């Protein structure tokens, strides 16, 4: 069964790019969220195998959302999506428990390589 992914980003444009990458890579995107609050709710509801999480979002940023998700499920796999120049924030997210990160703009092969590694398939 293909792995189930939740895509979190406040930009619809970016979500579409990421969704397409996952679809092409044989993953199934089971949900998307446009902010951190929604991300936490969707995670609880969908229990995906993996989450890609934008850093900067309205209402609740990606780091807080990651922390909250992990509080509810210590085994959650959250991969951060960051732009160049956000290194410090990514490291904070890693401290908070994010398992890996991908860099925007996302390139299909990088994203899939990271995700497969995280899921232990790489």
């Amino acid at each position, binding site marked *: 069964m293909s792995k189930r992914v939740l895509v979190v980003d406040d930009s619809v444009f970016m979500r579409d790019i990421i969704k397409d990458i996952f679809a092409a890579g044989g993953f199934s995107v089971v949900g998307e969220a446009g902010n951190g609050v929604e991300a936490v709710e969707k995670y609880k509801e969908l229990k995906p195998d993996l989450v890609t999480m934008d850093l900067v979002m309205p209402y609740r940023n990606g780091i807080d959302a990651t922390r909250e998700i992990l509080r509810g499920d210590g085994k959650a796999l959250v991969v951060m999506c960051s732009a160049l120049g956000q290194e410090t924030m990514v490291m904070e997210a890693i401290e908070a428990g994010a398992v890996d990160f991908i860099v925007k703009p996302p390139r299909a092969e990088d994203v899939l390589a*990271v995700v497969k590694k995280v899921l232990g398939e*790489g």
Partner: protein
Amino acid sequence: MAAQWDTSRYLALFVSEATEHLDALGKELVRLEGDVTGEAIDSLFRHAHSVKGMAGSMGYEATTTLGHRLEDLLDRVRTSPNRFDRQVADLVLQAVDALSAHVKAAAAGEPFPDASALTQQLETVASSMRPGTTPIPFFPPEAPPLVQSAPSTEPQLPPRWLVTLRVATTSAQPGVRGFLAYKRLSSLGNLFRCTPPLDEVKSGKLTNGTFSVELETTENEAAVQKTVSQVADVELVSLTRVTAPPPTAAPAEEKPAEPEARALGQEPQRTVRVRTELLDQFLDLAGELLLATAGVREVGRGLDEEPRAQLNGSVDRLHALVRGLHDKVMEARMTPVSVITERLPRAARDIARRRGREIELIIAGSEVLLDRAIVDELNDPVLHLLRNAIDHGVEPPEERRMRGKPPRGTVKLSVRRVSDRVLLEVEDDGRGMDVERLKAVAVERGLITLEQAKDLTEKEALLLSAAPGLSTASTVTDISGRGVGMDAVKRAVEAVGGTLEITSRRGLGTTFRLSLPLTVAMVNLLLVSVGDDVYGLPIAKVAGVVETSRSRLSHSQNVPVLQFGASVVPARELSAVLEVPGRPHDVEALSPFVVVETDEGRVALAVDGLLGQEEVVLKALARPLDQVKGLAGVTVLGNGRPVFILDVAKLEHPARVAAGGEA
């Protein structure tokens, strides 16, 4: 026992100094096992020597003899360090314990416990170590197997690996990649000697993308390989077992009192020792400066717009500088958690031995820094959690075997920083806690009603073990899987602004998680007015605010109660609690009720007004104000007005106040 002359006025000094020496001796000894250097033995010897000398001056004969024999034994070890083995170490520890017992007895004015057998044993062993003799077994075969009973707490460290990693040069953010790999490895055990230092790894400035770190772990090679393989763009260059203890940079820098200096392989930094009181004073002064700055800004409010703008510009700059100074002072107060954890292996070993448990104690993250004041407060609670984990959490080996668990239990103490909090967890793989049983006992003891018990979440129910009425009940010790004194742990943690959380799975183990602030000195207050006075309520203790009129309160057993969410909360006038005059009020008029968490449950406090929220520097109260019940501290607002901060946790719960209904 006591000498003819009056030694009583030296007693306190003797007790404190001897205790210090004995503590140090114990600590250094545990650290020593496995790595015996002449210098380290010298230090042990000096401690024993000092204690002996002091005991002699006090006229404590038995103590002096015991100290003397210990000194002899250590002297022998000094001349032939290869004779120092676990049995000798055990014996030295026993002597330290016996001496400590004497010191305690002296302090309490009680008769000293008999130590003649031990004294004799020390002598026998010491004489067997005379140069030229071959070692003889120190313990007759029928003696209790001291060594086997807790082999796991043996402070011999888990194997250490030198892990060399390469971050792909094509990686977009090599610094973060390297850091991620580092974090992943840290989940396996303790990391040391990151080369180049972690900050450089994080900055991504690596030659060929390569860095190395030493990993102390109980995991095997394959686990390390697997962990690294799960990090994209990072490759495991080599994994070699570090056989000998790592050579120290220079012996002089390896001060026993600063084990953390070795961690993470940072360059030894130049340091000076500063008295801790001086640091407290710095902090006080920096806090005063912050308040004074706010005072200047307040003065500006009375000025015309133009001079005010000018003044504010300067005040902003001043505020930033003072804030910077304050932060640096806070930083200087940061102390590694190792101050607490370094004595735990010894404690774990003792507890496990006494209780016939086999324990592996894993400590991770002891390099994490916390405000010294918090570290000081955590000492006892952490020890207590460890004791509980071993004593009540981990099952005896036979029972574990029967349950299909490895006979040796694992207790893991891990510390990590998560943004502006520090999480300290004590986790065991023991029998777990019985939630239903806890609830039942809590109901039985009248702490909660049957209905309340039904509504409790599992987390809330587990916290019952830290309720004052429960955790002190010795009968609960075994049925709940948790012992006495959890209420003290919870109180201590909350006193420094932390929270306690318990998770437990029946049969699988329990985790105690302390979430701690990095510093204690700043506190977020909700400012409320009562009559003409302003008081601060720590936001951390405020559950919410409800606006309603007094006429709409319901009553339960003569106590006015407020509907709050799904529950009802007893309501009181804050003015009545503080015994100060409040404003006269119309029972129909809307009033704010602040719902706060006291030790005994929630209480709604009726106040005259809500004035806002403010982050303030908490100052301890000086005498005689520190004697006033209900006050946690004081702060000065920008307008120069002193504000008392209420000790919300200790507020008297209306359930215990004579039913009279003041609200």
